[in-house]
């Protein structure tokens, strides 16, 4: 990550509240994950032990410590989505994207990235769009009333090609 941009983020948060979380959230938003060199920079700059940043990064589910794919697919696993078939959506997504099911990354989070880094698949607690369950989100756009059969159509919009 560029020094200049990092400086901007660090300086933006001069209030005492949520300072560290705010900075980490901005880096996560910009980069899609928390790069190690950025964390080291923040740690030195604010005189906060790196272990404290690591503790925050692993406690809150919003953060990733590993690079993610170009498009992020998030399957909502809220209660309404669960009873209306979210587990089947995850299973079908894993199959379509050809990512190894059921694995978590070393930071204890469920985030599966395709080999070509074009997609990452993860699960969320609840988007609060329960009326149109089950719901998936691709890069911030919400698709309601999803079924396994609708998934290829959605993926194709993001450049996914079906393997024959």
């Amino acid at each position, binding site marked *: 990550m560029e020094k200049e941009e990092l400086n901007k983020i660090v300086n933006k948060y001069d*209030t*005492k*509240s*949520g*300072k*560290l*979380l*705010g900075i*980490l*959230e901005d880096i*996560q938003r910009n980069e899609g994950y928390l790069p190690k060199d950025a964390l080291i920079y923040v740690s030195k700059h604010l005189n906060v032990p790196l272990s404290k940043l690591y*503790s*925050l990064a692993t*406690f*809150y*589910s*919003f*953060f990733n410590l590993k690079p993610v794919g170009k498009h992020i697919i998030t399957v909502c*696993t*809220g*209660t*309404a*989505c*669960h*009873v*209306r*078939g979210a587990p*089947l959506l995850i*299973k*079908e997504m894993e*199959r379509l994207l050809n990512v190894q099911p059921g694995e978590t990354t070393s930071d204890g989070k469920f985030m599966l990235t395709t080999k070509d880094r074009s997609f990452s698949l993860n699960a*969320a*607690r*609840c*988007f*609060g*769009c*329960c*009326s*149109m*369950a089950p*719901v998936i989100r691709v890069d*911030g756009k*919400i*698709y*309601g009333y999803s*079924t*396994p*059969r609708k998934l290829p159509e959605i993926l194709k919009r993001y450049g996914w090609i079906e393997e024959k």
Partner: protein
Amino acid sequence: MKIKTLEDLNKIKEKGLNKLLSSDKPHIAVGLASCGIATGGDRVFKALEDTIKAKKLDVELTKTGCFGICHEEPLVNVRIPGKPLVILHKVTENDAEKIIDDVANGKVPEEKALCKIEEWDHLTLDETVNYGKGYSNIPLWNEIPYFKPQKKVVLRDAGIINPEDIEEYIAVGGYSALYKALTEMTPDEIIEEVKKSGLRGRGGAGFPTGLKWSFIKKEKSDIKYVICNGDEGDPGAYMNRNEMESDPHMIIEGMLIGAYAVGATEGYIYVRAEYPLAIERFRKAIDQAREYGFLGENILGTDFSFDIGLVSNAGAFVCGEETALIASIEGKPGRPRPRPPFPAQKGLWGKPTNINNVETWCNIPVIIKKGGDWFSQIGIEKNTGTKVFSLVGKVKKAGLVEVPLGTPVRTIVYDIGGGAAKNRKVKAVQTGGPSGGTIPTSLFDTPVDYEHLKELGAIMGSGGIVVMDEKTCMVDTAKYFLNFTVDESCGKCVPCREGLKRMYDILDRITKGKGEEEDMETLEELATTIKEASLCGLGQTAPNPVLTTLKYFRDEYEAHIKEKRCPAHVCVDLIKFEVNKDKCIKCGLCYSACPVGAIDWKKGKTSIINKDKCIKCKACIEVCPVGAIE
């Protein structure tokens, strides 16, 4: 401009009313809360905007929040001057041209109309808003079954005003309760009024709000804080999201009144990161409130000063707990700590702090404006006011439902929700998320209030009501909630961290056909220990879904354990994936649904599932009209 006097406030009110009730041109507002956008409301807005521009028409187009009838979205409000406000439903971008053409000719597209509003009581406005009469073919909003049993107090503005325009909020009486509080009432009088109203915390526990305020009021400190808990973490609950997205100023006004009453000068709104639109709208609302002089120094010309900061939770369910939330605002991992000291004594940065849920704050302006006595008339004794529920799951009409407390479950699920979708039978509802429990249909006459739900082993929680039908497995549901709480347990205390994991392992075994008879007893024993010994509300309530399903649906546990069978056909390891020849009607639906071509079928022949190819995705089970796949 900074509002200093009642005259200033009234001037803006007039300006806002002119926008809402403009007499010279038609007014269109698209429902653009997260749910409206997700169903295509943003595309409808764009199409309407383009059409108005292309035809060079003088039509007002704005945004509004969500009217609560989510299964009919996208919704579009259309108003011709002097005529009722008409709500159109299931609008697509293809309807834009017809809508605009009709509106330009002084008509509304009646074929798209869901209902009409002739007059509306915003409660905080002294007079009702009269739109006009007409359109005899369109039903009144409160005549349609979904809204008939409802009473809109918290959702009094949602889906009618533009949440991004403070002037429209002021138009419907917004900030007039604040004016009353600051100029006519002492802090003690406000607390007395809130006590009189009987309002109880809407976050779930139901602690009396006025009493809570009186605790922090007593504390002497150079600085006190009030916090709005917008960390709506219960999966399946989304009323707070809508309240924040559709009427953010209502919450800010509530916090201002509360801050004045308890002597706080700083406030924080804590919103979960999964709600980006709520965060965005709050940011705008806070900026506008500062600009108009409702936040900052010497508010409304008095010596009361107060400001609000916005903090987003980076994703941790436990941060809904008060002490964990405080740690999170301080920039630490959100782990709860033992109480006492309570936040009212030692809260944010060690200072007295009062935390209320979003919906609790929503009720404050209307209580101050109309009085505690007025509020206490709604609902039943000890459970006054209304509650917004998110009615979701396998229900026909999903959406946000606001009813007086004490309304029976039956009214909510059947009269409002229309029962189960797809002509199936309702089996149970789950209230209160991972801390709540399931209620079987035999107990649907139970009034929904804090005490009755607790008696059944469930809780009110923040207001999620998830409907389950005959195809929902209750063991799987219990396992689902435990998976959730195991993941979200912060790990600080042993009973919650280790105990829940043990319970999950047992449930996992049962759903895989490896359950043993003593498992049910072990689950109950573990559950009791965890409830008694955990540090915070998360662990103390996490066993509830297991305990209630064991109590009301023991037969399903027994079927899994003794017969190695999942009656609802949900637990994949207990499904054989074989076609029952006697039941199969040879329709071939399973053949076309299978994504991997594992089903052999020819016209007039029974399907055969090739087990080597089958990936157990259950697509065939979902489509089979006769339940022939076992």
